[in-house]
């Protein structure tokens, strides 16, 4: 029978040197290498995508991208200024619906309905909604808004994107509220704050960074969706800021222009993809910067 002490070596001297050749250390090195390689695998598609979009999109990008209308087939002059404005408008409508509903629902789930049946089913519903294909969200908005109003519109596009955003905003906000320590709520109650004061002045401000992240995540997801907009916001070749008219958006413009066989339009589609990427990036960075200072 050997003891642990004996297995360390027969020499009476204490030897604490790293044994490079031992099987334990070799295995450790191997696994470290493997994890590093797989981490790179994750980064490769991301960088390849950004690089490719930038390479194809940059030549066409310029100040005129933001000011000119898309050219009709056959012509080459023009860009997608109206689609940028349209995307911003549709996203604003989507946020106007999804943020208040999502944040208030999350507050209900975490602060009032904890453990209740309603909370369970709402959370279940949100999870299902996360998995619903975006085109179904478009169908929903088509049935509820487009058919009711009798026309395609920016407003209906916003409603469709709100359905896409809602579960993301709600679940992320809920997680943000969850990490506010229970002791903080008790501290507030113990100085005589009502539940409303505790939530509105202590809990929600403390969770604000995560709520901002929730909104950003939701916007980023919604910004890239073309499918729900195809039969709600539709498209528009002209400037429009009318909520109740069809409106051009970047994803829909990319979709239409990338499938028509004209060189100029395809280049415009690449440039639009680059702008869309940049837009999402800018929104994320702003949200980070604004909220980074606040910590627990």
């Amino acid at each position, binding site marked *: 029978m050997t003891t642990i002490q004996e297995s360390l070596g027969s020499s009476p001297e204490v030897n604490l040197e790293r044994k490079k050749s031992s099987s334990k250390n070799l295995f450790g090195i191997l696994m470290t290498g493997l994890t590093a390689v797989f981490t790179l695998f994750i980064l490769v598609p991301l960088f390849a995508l950004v690089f490719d979009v930038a390479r194809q999109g940059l030549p066409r990008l310029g100040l005129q991208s933001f000011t000119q209308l898309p050219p009709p087939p056959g012509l080459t002059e023009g860009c997608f200024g109206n689609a940028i404005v349209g995307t911003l408008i549709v996203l604003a409508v989507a946020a106007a619906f999804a943020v208040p509903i999502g944040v208030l629902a999350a507050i209900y789930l975490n602060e009032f309905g904890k*453990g209740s049946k309603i909370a369970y089913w709402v959370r279940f519903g949100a999870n299902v909604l996360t998995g619903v294909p975006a085109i179904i969200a478009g169908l929903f908005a088509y049935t509820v808004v487009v058919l009711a109003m009798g026309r395609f519109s920016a407003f209906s596009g916003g409603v469709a994107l709100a359905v896409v955003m809602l579960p993301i905003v709600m679940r992320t906000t809920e997680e943000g509220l969850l990490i*506010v320590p229970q002791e903080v709520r008790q501290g*507030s109650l*113990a100085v005589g704050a*009502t539940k409303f004061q505790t939530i509105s*002045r202590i809990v929600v401000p403390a969770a604000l960074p995560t709520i901002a992240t929730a909104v950003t995540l939701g916007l980023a997801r919604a910004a890239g969706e073309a499918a729900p907009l195809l039969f709600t916001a539709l498209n528009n070749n002209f400037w429009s800021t009318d909520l109740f008219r069809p409106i051009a958006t970047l994803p829909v413009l990319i979709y239409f222009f990338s499938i028509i066989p004209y060189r100029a339009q395809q280049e415009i589609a690449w440039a639009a993809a680059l702008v869309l990427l940049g837009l999402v990036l800018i929104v994320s960075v702003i949200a980070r910067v604004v909220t980074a200072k606040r910590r*627990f």
Partner: protein
Amino acid sequence: MRLGLVWVMVFSISLSLHTQTRAILQAENVSVQYGSVPAIQDINLDIPKNRVTAFIGPSGSGKSTLLRCFNRMNDTIPGARLLGRLTFEGVDLYGRNVDPVQVRRRIGMVFQRPNPLPKSVYENIAFGARINGYPGDMDELVERILRRAALWDEVKDKLWQSGLSLSGGQQQRLCIARILAIEPKVILLDEPCSALDPVSTLRIEDLLIELKQQYTIVIVTHNMQQAMRVSDWTAFFNAEVDAHDHRKNRLVEFAPTKVLFSTPKERATQDYISGRFG
């Protein structure tokens, strides 16, 4: 002869404490259950006004549970239920029309782990005052309260930093200061020093002794020296197991601190304070 003298002393101390003070909080046959699990049973206790009362006893003996009943913090725990009668200045704390928020505005609480609000030092003090409609100059209040809590010199240059950037002991004094800002009648402290080092602990004890001129203080502590140092009255709680193997938490003995620690009436108290268990 000597023994007789001690008895006279003890008697006179307890007499003087009895005559000078009246109860501000009274528990009559109070029992608390969490769901179907009984936490404390049949507690009868009068907390004297403008004195420091200490609750001592082993873990799980129901000290904190009773403390949390006094300002209805147990309301925030689902399934908690109180039987019996608990009064503050003669008013039933669990009466039909009693608003727990109104109770907590008069009976403040400091918790085991320092829990500053995730706001600046200044806002930690101002928050309670503001929601309670303090009409005066907020800057003046914050400075006065922080001085009162012997914290001003340490934090006067950090008023706009997060309360969470302070040391543990400073955070706990900030939590006490935050309670002072709402001018309560009673301050409940639930093992306020258990997460702190000895120096911070002493500072808080000094503060408590100073504050008792103006406030009624109830403190739960595991530290018997602390109970002896700061309290005038001590209640000993014990977790007992009866013949049917049911746990039963009860108030074993309640007496002036000097009496309880020198001449306890009950065997269990004697065993606990001499360190035989707990």
